[in-house]
């Protein structure tokens, strides 16, 4: 089973040289720490920055330089600043190659819910609805089951949707799965030490298993 760092490491392997990538809040933010040194990747922060760098050294924080999670960050050489309309313009126009975000639920047809629990939690969708509606490649980073032990990979989402038919890949503490265009979660890899049976038990939606399922290579 993977911890959050493990999920981030596995997702980092999906990032290719030359990609512009938008990382959501939570586990996706950690992905930045594991992008291989030998590829060039530009991180987009939807509040208006391309070229997001690591957190500043203590004492060098600048209130005017933050990321979409409102954290103080730095700007790498070659960064560019733009306004919020242009930020979502480049997202809508599919200039951003990969979007990685968290989810509360994903359905077997690629619907995603991650912004609201009616009557309990209303934080808002932020940029998530724009991202999922336009991104051509969306990877979801999340736990396979919620705190109550219920599967988050469902036949259909029970929570208000963020977007429809948009999730392409899911990485959880148990597995890597593709969401097939025709519907269904196709099991691609198992986390170290996790059996296919455990993944089956944790997946409420349609799970497609073909042949031997290899263990993830995190080396």
């Amino acid at each position, binding site marked *: 089973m993977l911890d959050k760092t493990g999920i981030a490491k596995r997702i980092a392997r999906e990032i290719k040289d030359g990609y512009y990538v938008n990382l959501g809040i939570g586990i996706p933010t950690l992905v930045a720490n594991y992008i291989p040194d030998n590829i060039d990747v530009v991180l987009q922060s939807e509040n208006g920055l391309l070229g997001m760098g690591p957190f*500043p050294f203590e004492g060098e924080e600048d209130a005017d330089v933050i990321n979409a999670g409102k954290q103080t960050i730095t700007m790498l050489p070659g960064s560019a600043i733009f306004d919020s309309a242009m930020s979502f313009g480049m997202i*809508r126009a599919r200039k951003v190659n990969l979007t990685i975000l968290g989810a509360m639920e994903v359905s077997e047809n690629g619907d995603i819910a991650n912004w609201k629990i009616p009557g309990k939690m209303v934080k808002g969708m932020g940029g998530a609805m724009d991202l999922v509606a336009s991104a051509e490649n969306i990877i979801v980073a999340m736990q396979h089951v919620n705190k109550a032990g219920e599967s988050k990979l469902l036949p259909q989402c029970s929570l208000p949707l963020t977007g429809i038919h948009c999730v392409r890949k899911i990485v959880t503490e148990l597995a890597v799965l593709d969401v097939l265009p025709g519907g269904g979660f196709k099991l691609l890899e198992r986390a170290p030490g996790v059996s296919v049976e455990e993944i089956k038990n944790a997946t409420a939606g349609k799970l497609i298993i073909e042949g031997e399922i290899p263990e993830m290579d995190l080396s």
Partner: protein
Amino acid sequence: MNKVFSNADEAIHDITDGMTLLLGGFGLCGLPENCITALVKKGIKELTCISNNAGVDDFGIGLMLRQRQVKKMISSYVGENAEFERQLLSGELEVELIPQGTLATRCLAAGYGMPAIFTPAGVGTEVAIGKEIRNFNGKDYLMEMAFDADFAIVKAWKGDSMGNLVYRSTARNFNPVMAMAGKITIAEVEELVEPGELDPDQIHTPGIYVHRIFRGANYEKRIEQRTVRPR
């Protein structure tokens, strides 16, 4: 042409109960702090506030919420404000949550003189309820209307007495698009200079969009999430 005001109280003097305001900033970054303080002091009520976030409990628009000055809030993300969430869940506050890109682009539309935009954000979700859907090239889009706001209130780094504005780093965020979208736009700046001191090639918001400008005082520039790495 005299756009220069001496302070926030004067710049907001004719904002009254029931008006619709666009307020720049993302989180607490690039926030028109001086004007918010003045609005809190003035105590006007029944406002509709359009801003990406609702501040935190004790800073930004959170201060106006605490005084129940806001009737309706139009935002994309409000997770940092417990009082907001309480007023929302209890039904005291009317809230319209809209996607962040939709919010920005509805400002842009207003500033570009376009009545509406089409965006895929929110298709198939509750955001789409009651909205016109158009299909272009096989994909569905929602029609979203340009904002119609009485005032836009923004914060810039530098400005000149003609109203030309320059923003700094990610404090730019919503400020340029909101500056374009107000019937009357008020800009507060850290540095107010004479015409000619700003390079025309480096202007982010041309002064034609800005009706009032003043040099703000005592910027707190609070940091919401102070994250650092070890040396």
